[in-house]
């Protein structure tokens, strides 16, 4: 079971993605994530994240044909969703792993999880 606070963070990520994607979809940080299905792992729990140029959707379970598997420990998820860490932080602490054919998706998704969290915080602070 994904802890409720992580689930809430993922929901907030999807909401921010949906709000900001029209402005961001041409950006090189975002473009490799468009039209991708990514299995998310948190301990034994699995979610499927589908990212398109119009929306981000999270569903239960996983897709065997997904483009990548993106997993870290619960605290790693919290750190990314709070904007405190990204793929580079977590891999260098040996808390995420990657492989060459998935690395770009791993990096960019972690960056968007972190950046959109920071953007939410900045917008909430009024600037």
């Amino acid at each position, binding site marked *: 079971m994904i802890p409720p606070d992580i689930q809430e963070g993922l929901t907030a990520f999807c909401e921010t993605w949906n709000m900001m994607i029209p402005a961001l979809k041409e950006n090189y940080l975002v473009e490799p994530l468009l039209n991708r299905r990514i299995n998310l792992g948190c301990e034994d729990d699995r979610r499927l994240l589908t990212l398109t140029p119009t929306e981000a959707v999270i569903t239960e379970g996983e897709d065997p044909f997904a483009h990548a598997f993106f997993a870290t420990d619960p605290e790693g998820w919290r750190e990314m969703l709070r904007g405190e860490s*990204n793929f580079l932080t977590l891999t*260098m602490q040996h808390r995420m792993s990657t492989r060459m054919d998935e690395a*770009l998706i791993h990096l960019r998704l972690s960056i968007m999880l972190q*950046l959109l969290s920071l*953007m939410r915080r*900045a917008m909430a602070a009024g600037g």
Partner: protein
Amino acid sequence: MDMEGITRCLAEFTVQLQYDDIPDHVISKTKEQLTSILGATLAGADTEPGRKALEAVRAWGDQPEAAAIGSDYRTSMRGAAFVNSISAQLLEFEDALMPYSHIGAASIPAALAVGEARKRSGRELLVALVAGNEIGGRIGHAIHRGIRMGNIIPVYQAVVPFVTSRLLGYDLTTTLDAVGGALIQIQISILSGWVSNSKAYLSAMPTLVGVTAASVAGSGFTGFHEALEDPLGYFTQTCERPVPAEAVEGLGEIWQSEKLVNKPFPVCGWTLAPVEGTIDLVKENAIAPADIEKITVKVPVQSVMGGTMWKAKDAFHNLEERHDWCYIPLLFEMTYPVAAAAVDGELTPRQWREERLFDEEIHAVMERVVYEPDIALTTAYVNEDKLGAAVAITTRDGKTVEKHIPIARGSTENPMDVEGKFLSCARGVIEDGKAREALQMINGLEELVDMGELNACLMQG
């Protein structure tokens, strides 16, 4: 996409570029870059790892062709290029060609070593450095969309063989041989390894390989002439989503060198504006470290991304516990540099020595540094490549003072005193008279007949 002839196009540019083709302001920018990098090199030579590298290269016993900057010996052309690039890189004190390339920590050591060994003029040095900046700035653009970001975008290895070939006086064919030779095995850095002294190899190894390959190409040893654009070549190997056409866009018409930024502080580019704002505030308001309640630093969201790669707590723990760790990850972390700047009123190479790294007062202030993402600063970075920050210091009496730095010092819009940086870095490493003579030579580089005279000023004794 038409990728044909990119290596050839850049080689032609390198061979054909003339001093008179280059606008005056680009020449001025390049002299500033040279001054700034030479300061960084002298400062790096005076660090503990810098001294170790200098002693190791001295022990090679190579033929004395070019100066090991900040030392009292000369070594081979490639040995000098290598060790001077280590010194230039060690303190993260070099240049950035906004937004994706770092160049000078490789191109300048390579050019100085080759130029001295072959008795080139100051004018020839300037032309070679401009060619390197124009090529490097474009290549950084072409390969920035992959997993490698910032200084890990592997630009150095593509720049050095062009710069070196120009100073060796090569024709088009030999320049292509040099580039093909240098790029036959691509070099990619392990980011996790930047915790060790070996982070300096980021520029030094490509410099060594580039100068070596160029030197060997001069004997007629061939290199692959399509190394950059080949479907299995440099662009494909270094970036998951390259746009090779960007490597030649506007070549000779739009000058990338205009976007050169020099660093006034030895720290990652993201932290320049926070450090500048902090120093200004503590000086302008005479704030004592013990009076600091909180330092709030607003930055573009991308700054936080870079600044969270390493955590201060982990870095200081590992500095004490692990043989392989050194101060280098803290150059990219954002709380220590700001705290050190607040306590010492400066951020210089001194703050990266053990005596300051473990200072209790700095560590107490570090706990009170908070970063906040800011939308306006983010927009300014995304749209205009402006690295800015807004710093607020709250003191224990409840007062808050604020400073907005729209764009970090070292850029065209907020210029820095590069000569001041050079002299400050030179102090204690070379004689003051020699340092001032070196500055005069850089300012009048067009009149310098033999670059060896400049290099001689950068040596001890």
